[in-house]
């Protein structure tokens, strides 16, 4: 029998090599597919393609960016009718921003070199043919004028400067005054309630009110001045449109640009995407608050979960007596990793927000509750509760990784330390923990990766669609753990499912996804670098 099996020339193991590699291949294909899908779709937000002028059978014309082409739903399968979707912009005039046209209806399509794309503060983009500029001094510069481009850029940057100033006043200064007023009003109500003299406070309030009015008029004046310059242009049908420069963000000529100009525009838009605040129900502008929120939340989560998890693991591995209780606890901890994340969200809401946060409010912010229409401070979702909830969710990952790392420390090191007269705690602190640091960090990396991408529990405990202020600012105590914040994962959900303009939001969904992936990869790379440094320290160990 052994003779016959030895005689066969068919290799025994090879077929199984192929079989087992199948899983890897499928996995790789999926990863590559996912990344390229996200990359392609995401970059369409930043890339400026050529913008065709399309003449239709009914003698109307549209100017717009081609978004997609598809078989019209319900058209015969054998002889399909294709239709194209164009982003035509100028929503305030057209009433829509995206339009579908049958390919059969298209008579002619050409690229008008004069076509100009405009990105605007509101109502989405516009594709127009510029005619002239009325500049801040009231001069009219024709589009054919050689100066036109220079004046256009000058007016755009001037308008951007004014917008920044107005923003600084309305958001920054008026925001500060508002917060002070808020605090004073609470004080006033308390003073009234307790029968204390209120004149002084009222004086302060009046002063602040005056300041508020001044700032407001200053801002209005500024924006009024900035909006004097106008761009006069024709829309697709040849009608005149007037666009105030104060509403314009950037202009480009998609049918004239060189490749490098397109790349420049791409990076320009990418910069805005990363460093600016969102506009237009989050479908335009940047994601700075969401990036920042995700980062801060993940960092706090790691700061909370690491010590907690490590301490727990040390007890379980080093101190606890082996027995049925320990084994049960260990099984429970491991199973905790499999609990659906939304369950942690519900727990976070029920325990952290209502019980813990409610108690904190009762104890430390009772005045605020009483005199501020029962507005909770910590008794509502916020950064602290989000971090805590996710820390709880990722705790088993850290515990398991730390236990593994501790048990992987060579027995010899432990014995050497004890034989040198070290106590158990000294051995853990000086020998075991440093030696198992790379393993612990692996656990933290996994926890971070899981925490940074989690959405479901956060929706319950403090992530919002649009947060007016970052959790970190110049107001004492600088870090506001009670504030609600924006999060990339939730942002994706919000864009994809809650957006009023789903066509406009779709590319942003992919771009945001891309950003989230990049962010998680960056966080992990950071942690992996630290881990590798630690590992290098132990390289060459002879055990």
């Amino acid at each position, binding site marked *: 029998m052994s003779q016959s099996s030895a005689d066969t020339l068919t290799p025994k193991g090879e077929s199984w090599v192929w079989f087992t590699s199948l899983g890897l291949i499928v996995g790789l294909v999926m990863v590559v597919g996912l990344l390229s899908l996200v990359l392609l779709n995401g970059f369409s937000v930043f890339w400026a393609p050529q913008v065709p002028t399309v003449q239709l059978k009914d003698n109307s014309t549209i100017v717009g960016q081609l978004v997609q082409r598809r078989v019209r739903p319900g058209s015969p399968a054998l002889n399909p009718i294709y239709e194209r979707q164009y982003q035509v912009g100028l929503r305030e005039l057209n009433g829509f921003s995206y339009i579908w046209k049958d390919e059969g209806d298209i008579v002619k399509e050409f690229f008008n070199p004069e076509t100009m794309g405009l990105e605007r503060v509101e109502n989405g983009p516009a594709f127009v043919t510029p005619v002239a500029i009325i500049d801040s001094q009231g001069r009219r510069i024709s589009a054919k004028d050689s100066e036109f481009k220079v004046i256009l850029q000058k007016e755009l940057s001037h308008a951007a400067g004014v917008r920044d100033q107005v923003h600084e006043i309305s958001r920054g200064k008026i925001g500060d005054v508002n917060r002070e007023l808020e605090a004073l009003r609470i004080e006033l109500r308390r003073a009234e309630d307790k029968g204390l003299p209120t004149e002084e406070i009222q004086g302060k309030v009046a002063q602040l009110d005056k300041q508020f009015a001044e700032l407001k008029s200053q801002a209005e004046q500024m924006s009024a001045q900035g909006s004097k310059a106008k761009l006069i242009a024709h829309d697709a049908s040849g009608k005149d449109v007037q666009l105030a420069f104060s509403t314009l963000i950037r202009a480009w000529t998609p049918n004239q640009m060189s490749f490098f100009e397109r790349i420049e525009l791409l990076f320009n838009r990418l910069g805005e995407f990363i460093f600016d605040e969102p506009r237009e129900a989050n479908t335009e502008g940047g994601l700075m608050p969401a990036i920042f929120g995700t980062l801060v939340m993940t960092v706090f989560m790691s700061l909370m979960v690491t010590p907690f998890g490590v301490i727990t693991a040390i007890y379980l591995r080093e101190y606890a007596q*082996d027995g049925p209780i320990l084994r049960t606890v260990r099984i429970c901890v491991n199973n905790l990793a499999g609990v659906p994340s939304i369950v942690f969200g519900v727990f976070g809401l029920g325990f952290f927000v209502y019980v813990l946060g409610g108690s904190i409010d009762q104890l430390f912010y009772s005045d605020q509750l009483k005199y501020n229409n029962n507005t909770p401070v910590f008794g509502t979702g916020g950064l602290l509760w989000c971090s805590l909830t996710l820390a709880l969710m990722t705790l088993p990952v850290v515990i398991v990784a730390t236990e593994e790392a501790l048990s992987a420390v*060579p027995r*010899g*090191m*432990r*014995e*050497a*330390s*004890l*034989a*040198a*007269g*070290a*106590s158990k705690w*000294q051995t853990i602190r*000086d*020998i075991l923990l*440093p*030696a198992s640091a790379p393993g612990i960090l692996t656990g933290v990396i996994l926890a971070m990766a899981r925490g940074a991408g989690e959405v479901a529990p956060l929706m319950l405990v403090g992530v919002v669609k649009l947060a007016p202020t970052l959790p970190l600012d110049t107001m004492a105590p600088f870090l506001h753990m009670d504030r609600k914040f924006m999060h990339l994962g939730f942002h994706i959900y919000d864009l994809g499912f809650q957006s009023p303009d789903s066509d406009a939001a779709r590319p942003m969904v992919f771009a945001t996804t891309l950003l989230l992936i990049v962010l998680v990869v960056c966080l992990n790379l950071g942690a992996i670098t630290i881990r590798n440094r630690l590992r290098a*320290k*132990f*390289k*060459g*160990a*002879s*055990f």
Partner: protein
Amino acid sequence: MNPTTSRIQVRPATEREGRKDYIRIQNYGFWYSEKKALDAISLDVPERQVVAFIGPSGCGKSTLLRNLNRMNDLIDGIRHEGDITIAGRSIYDPNLEVISLRRRVGMVFQKSNPFPKSIYENVVYALRVMGVTNRATLDEACETSLRKSALWDEVKDRLNESALGLSGGQMQRLCIARAIANRPEILLMDEPCSALDPIATGKIEELIHELKEQFTIVIVTHSMQQAARVSDRTAFFYLGKLIEYDTTEKIFMNPSQAQTEAYISGRFG
């Protein structure tokens, strides 16, 4: 006389002032859970002498050695009977903290096990855990121990480099330096040369000779030549029992037990 035995060179036993029963093991038995590892062992280790434990694998010699500083306490389900005293005091005295016992009884292991720290930190570890923070004291202890372990000249210029960059023999000498840094009275060595080449082994054996001026040394070894070369007295164990214990000269030249003779002449079956 057996030809194998005669090839082994035996160093004549050094007789020194000191207690003859510095470590006294009395009728000592030891169990791992249900398995009896040691059975009614009684032997005395004189002060500042080298005693070698020899015997085939699993005979209990390492177990006995590791009980001298209660290293086996780490294992669950152990149990003992009889007693071990060091300088007249039982190591199982409830008033004696195991940490202070281990500070008096240093240990060198079979595999060199330096910590992933600098050479300096490795040597002064025992002092650090005792709470010594005075830099001068630590520096002095580091130099003294490294000199005693014949490593000083090789590492004095790289004390702050990782100990893991040393060679195998250097690592083992570093472990010896670490074990003697807090000036213990007894040094236990569990097959300290089993992973080393002959040159490194020679160095460590030289070291043992110098160290016994100050320390009482108990060494477990599989090499009978080594036992003969370094020890003053030798104990032969077999299956958890002490078969014979006498001066090294007597054990190797003229053993009184047939089993001992069979073992040291390599005719063991």
